[in-house]
Every structure is written in structure tokens, then in C-alpha cells.
């Protein structure tokens, strides 16, 4: 289990991270969100022991992070962190040994990983000769080759096509089942919604939203009603108290309401029309993110 307790990091007068706390239990996938420059990279660097926090502490299974504990952490950085002049085999061995594995163990495991990600034929090819997607796969394998206890994924699906995204997702779920704690960061909110039960949203180093995803959505209040039908009374719907907006989304009408108590009023308005869809849905994480992050900017 990872415990981040009230960490803060200052660069002069600039607060990169301030009073950030969260825990990631074994087998849990945790989302760390924020716009560019919000403090995600600083948080990852503190967790990895690359920089020291000015305040607070980070514990992995109750122990402070040091060069022994980092052997049990895997890190997929946002930008590719591969030595492009090395071959795939050399690269994986290099990172593997740095994570405390011996070369024989790595050689034994490498073939399985390469096969799983369908890149066995590239074993002796130089990294720079690979496509971006295949380089991303190598980066992912190098992060999990040590069967980490904690895995940090910063935009792990960059450059991957849907088939390879599926392959990587399966690998992430396998690690989750093995009890690995995973921190996931992405600007693509659908991935976060797919993976994470718990998350925190950072704005200028401060956590503005934190907790279980379903609770966050619940607390957010605003709901959406998705309608599909003919000649719907859109003007009347707009005038209902508690309706925030009415808009067309992919051939459907999206009615944004302040809370779920408004939903029956909308239903009573449309029930006598020829409707083929009436669905009360949770707001997307994307909406919450834009609202929370954008609101602070305003």
C-alpha cells in the first residue's frame, strides 16, 4: 500500500505541491489528474524518491521510499525514457538490473513479455528503429519487468492503436489482480473512468477534488438526461427550473440538470411524445474536470 501524507514541495515562493494526501491500496488503481503544470510530475518524482518533499512523507508498505524500495516501483514516464541506441534486449536488461534483478532472470522473462506484446521479432533491434507504439510497449515492459509493488503510469497509452491499448489494459488488470498498487495519470478522462475507482484532481499543486469516483460524481450533483425522440418540446424543457442547458450531442438531446429531483419534471414533459430513449446519466469525469479546473482558473 502506498501512503502519501500531506506532502508539499516548494521551489522558492512557488508551491509545486501543497498538502497532498492519498492512499493507494494493494490491487487498487488510483487516478492522479491535473492540467499541465498542476504538480503531477513533481508528485511522481517525490514518490520515486527523485526529489525530497519539503513537508510530509511517502510510505510504501509502511516504509519510507529509498533505493531499496524503488526496486519495487515501476514508472512509465509521460515522455519516452529509453536509450534509443540500445537494442530491446539491452534496454530491458539495463532497466531490469537497475531494479535489482539479475541478468539471467531478465533473459528468462523477456521472451514471455515480448511475446505477450507481440514484439518478439524486435528483440535484437535498436530502440530507435522501432515505431512509437512499439517503443511505448518496450517502455511499459521495462517498468513492469520487476513485477512492481507500485506502478506509476503517466500517459501510458500514448502512440498506441486500440488493439495495443487493449493489450496493455489487460496487462494492467493482470498486475492489479496480483496486488500491484497503480497510479494512473492521463488527460484522456475515459481511460481514468475505465480504470480508476479513486482519484485526486490537482490544480496548481492543490488537491481540489479527491475520493471515490462514484462519490465525486454523486457530490457533483449535476446530472444529464439523454433523450431521443421526435418533435421534443425543447423550449419548454429549457424553461423548467433546475435545467442548466439543453444541447444536441451525437444525434441525441442532452439536458443538463442541477440535481436528480429535476428529472421527473422533464419526464412529465416528454412522456407524451414519441420518445425512444430517456436516460438519466452521471456526469462524465471530463465535465467534472473542466468544471473544477476551469472554475479555479476563472
Amino acid at each position: 500500500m502506498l501512503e502519501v501524507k500531506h506532502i508539499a514541495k516548494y521551489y522558492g515562493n512557488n508551491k509545486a505541491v501543497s498538502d497532498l494526501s492519498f492512499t493507494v491500496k494493494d490491487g487498487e488503481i488510483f487516478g492522479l489528474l491535473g492540467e499541465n503544470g498542476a504538480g503531477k510530475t513533481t508528485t511522481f518524482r517525490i514518490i520515486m524518491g527523485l526529489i525530497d518533499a519539503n513537508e510530509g512523507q511517502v510510505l510504501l508498505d509502511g516504509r519510507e521510499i529509498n533505493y531499496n524500495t524503488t526496486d519495487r516501483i515501476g514508472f512509465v514516464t509521460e515522455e519516452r525514457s529509453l536509450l534509443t541506441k540500445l537494442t530491446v534486449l539491452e534496454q530491458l536488461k539495463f532497466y531490469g538490473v537497475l531494479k535489482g534483478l539479475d541478468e539471467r532472470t531478465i533473459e528468462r522473462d523477456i521472451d514471455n513479455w515480448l511475446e505477450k506484446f507481440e514484439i518478439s521479432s524486435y528483440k535484437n533491434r535498436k530502440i530507435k528503429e522501432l515505431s512509437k507504439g512499439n517503443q511505448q510497449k518496450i517502455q511499459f515492459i521495462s517498468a513492469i519487468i520487476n513485477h512492481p509493488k507500485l506502478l506509476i503510469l503517466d500517459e501510458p497509452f500514448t502512440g498506441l492503436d486500440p488493439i495495443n491499448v487493449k493489450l496493455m489494459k489487460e496487462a494492467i488488470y493482470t498486475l492489479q489482480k496480483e496486488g500491484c498498487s497503480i497510479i494512473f495519470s492521463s488527460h484522456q478522462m475515459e481511460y481514468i473512468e475505465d480504470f480508476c475507482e479513486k482519484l485526486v484532481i490537482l490544480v496548481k499543486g492543490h488537491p481540489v477534488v479527491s475520493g471515490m469516483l462514484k462519490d465525486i460524481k454523486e457530490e457533483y450533483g449535476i446530472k444529464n438526461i439523454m433523450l431521443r425522440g421526435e418533435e421534443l418540446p425543447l423550449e419548454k424543457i429549457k424553461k423548467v427550473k433546475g435545467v442548466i442547458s439543453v444541447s444536441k450531442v451525437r444525434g441525441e438531446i442532452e439536458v443538463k440538470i442541477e440535481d436528480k429531483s429535476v428529472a421527473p419534471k422533464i419526464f412529465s414533459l416528454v412522456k407524451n411524445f414519441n420518445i425512444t430513449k430517456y436516460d438519466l446519466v452521471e456526469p462524465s469525469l471530463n465535465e467534472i474536470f473542466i468544471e473544477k479546473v476551469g472554475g479555479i482558473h476563472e
Partner: protein
Amino acid sequence: MSKKFWYLTKVSLKKKINSKWFVITNIILALAIILLLNMNSLINFFGGDFDNKIQITVIDNNTNSYNLLKENIKSFSSSLKGENEELKLTVNLSDKSLHEEESNLDNDEIIIVLNNSNKEYLTAKIISEEKIDSVTYQVLSQSLNSTKSAIGMTLNNIDPSILTEISTPVSIDRVVLSDENSVDENMEIIMGSVFPTVILPFFMLTIFLIQMIGGEICEEKTTRSMEIIISNVSPKTHLLSKILASNVFVILQGLLLIIYAIIGLLISTDMLSGGLSMPSDITSIFDSLVSTGFVDKLIYVIPLTLILIVLSFIAYSVVAGILASMTVNMEDFSQLQTPLVFISLAGYYLAIMAGMFNGSILIRILSYVPFLSSFVSPSLYMMGQIGIIDIIISIIVLIIFIYLLLHFGIRVYKVGILNYSNEKVWSKFFKAFKNKDV
């Protein structure tokens, strides 16, 4: 941690040695060194000869000084080229006319026409097809002057025994009272020709080392693999592994250069003499070195110089590593390393020109300065301007300097390797330098 240190060192070293450029560079270096040392044979092979004898034909127009001139040419030639060396000038008297000799003149022939003169005792004309090399011209000029003096003294009835005494070169017994370590001025001439050649590879390897360590750190930074590496090993371990790998590499490269030189000499020996004797030029230089006490001094100076060189390599690589950590790309490092290259260049020139600073306190102080000491100290010691104790002081200063560099520099390195911004870069590093908690 030590396992990871040795692994990082091994990978770094392997990457350098397994590179095709290392192989190609060494093939070129080996060929260049072997060819340079066998230049004489090479020129012979293509129809030229350094050892061609120059034929001097003397047309004596009633001066009766041919024999005297011949003796003088032999004497000056030996004194300039060394007694054991074969005389390359052959002199003969011609009974043909100048016109006939000129029409049959070859490239390696010189005609000297001797004429009487009432005022100057002797005048001469030197005729050749092409330009004469400066040493040969010097021999001929001195021989003619000496012949003229002899003619003049004979015509003025000076006793032949007195004439011989006058002609004999002055015997010089050189004694320097102020410094028992001092050697004669001949050593400075030898230092001027031998020492630049000896330290040039060291200078080249230093430049190579600076660029190599900087390049490697820059590469790891720009590919962002540094974050993964540093999360598993400490910055100190990382820097030390780079220093060790780069130093082992340049020492290996230095040894390879020595091996190429030995191979070149062996080939040269075999081709020139067919036996185990050394080529004449090298024998001549070696004889000069032995006679000036150079070789005796080498016994003391070689181990101390090697220690200085290795320590200097370490100092240069620590600074290069720290500078590389502060940059965000290779172009920035190329600019930042320039002062370091200039310091090294200054050391090289100071070592070559050390003789000009005879007795200067400044050059003595400079011989203690890290980065310069490995160039200047051995040079000054060989010329007798400093003693063994001064070299030992240079070594101690260098060790303290490396310790301080590592102690403070590692703070900058730790901040630098994770810095990807050029904003307020110096302020960040000065802050890191002062902050012991970094």
C-alpha cells in the same frame, strides 16, 4: 548498491568499446602512427630518400683550399648530426669547367666554386638545381667561413699550431651554482622537441574524456532515461560510474596508442636495419636524452606523472559531468565545455613553454594548480626547475581538489540531472551548491 555501480560502469564501458566508431578510430590511429614512424621507409618505397647522400663538387680556382674545406665540411656535419651518424655529404674536387658541371647537375648535387679575393681572402659560389635544406646550407656556410679564416691566418703568418688552437671549439664546463637540480641548457632544446610529442596524446585524451562523459550524460538526460536510472541509483553512484567507465576507457585508449607506437617502431627497426637496432633518428634522440640525464629522471617522474595524469583525468571528468548535468542538450554542453578545453590547452602550452619561464614563481605556482599540474609539473621537473616534492604537493592539491569537487559538485549534479529548463539555471545551481540538504 555496489552491484548496480559496477553494472552501470560495465554498460557504459561496453557501449564505448563495442561501438563501431571506436574500432574505426583505432584502425585510423594505428595506421597513422605506424605510417608516421615509418615515413622514411615509405618515402623510399615511393622513390624518395631522407638518407640520400648529397654530392658536393668543388671547383677550386687556384685557392688551394679544397682539402681544408673538405675537412671543415666533415667536421661541421658531424657536430650538427652527431658523431656516430653516417655523414650524408660527400665532397670531391672537380677538374671540369663550371659549364660542364652545371650541365650535368643532379638534384642531389651541389657545386661550390672557390675563388681568390684580395680583400676577402676567399669568395664562393654555391650552385644547386633546387633549394638546399637549411642544415646542409648551414654546414656549407660555416665550413666556408672557417676555411676563409684559416686562409687569412695562414696568409698573415700565424703559426699552424696557434691556428689549430684558435680553430678548436671552446670547451664549456657548465656549472649552475644556484640550483643543484638544474641541468644544462641542452635539456631545454630537447624538452622543446620531445615533451610536446609526449604530452600531446594526454592533451588529446583529456579533450576526448570531457566530450565523452558530457555526451553520455546529455544523452541520458535528453532521452529522459535519467529519471528511471536515478530512481534506482543515487546521483553519486551514477556520476562515479560514468567517471570510472570514461577513465578506464581513455587509459585503455592511451595504452592502445602506446602499443601502436611500439608496433610502428618494431616495423621501422625491421625494415631499416633488419636487426634489433633502433632507427638512427630515434637512437640519436635517445642518446641525447641519456647524456642530459633525462632518462635517469624518467625513473622518478613516470610513476608520479602517471598518478597526476589519472587524477587529472578524474578531476576533468567530474567537472565535465557536473557541467553536462546543468545543460539540457548537447549543443549547450558543447558551449559550456569550452572553458574546460581552454584550461587544458593552456596547460599544454605552458608545459611546452615552461623553459621560457626559467625560475619564475608564477610557473611554479601554476604547476600546483589542478588541471594544469599534470602538464606543467613533469615538464618543470625534467628541466630541473622543481623537485620531486613539488610534484607530490601537486598530487596532494589535486586529491583535495577532487574531494571538494565531488563534495559540492554532487549537490549541483543531483539538481542538474533532473532540470530541463534553461530558466535561472545559474541561480538554481548556486543555490544547490550552497544547500547541503540537496
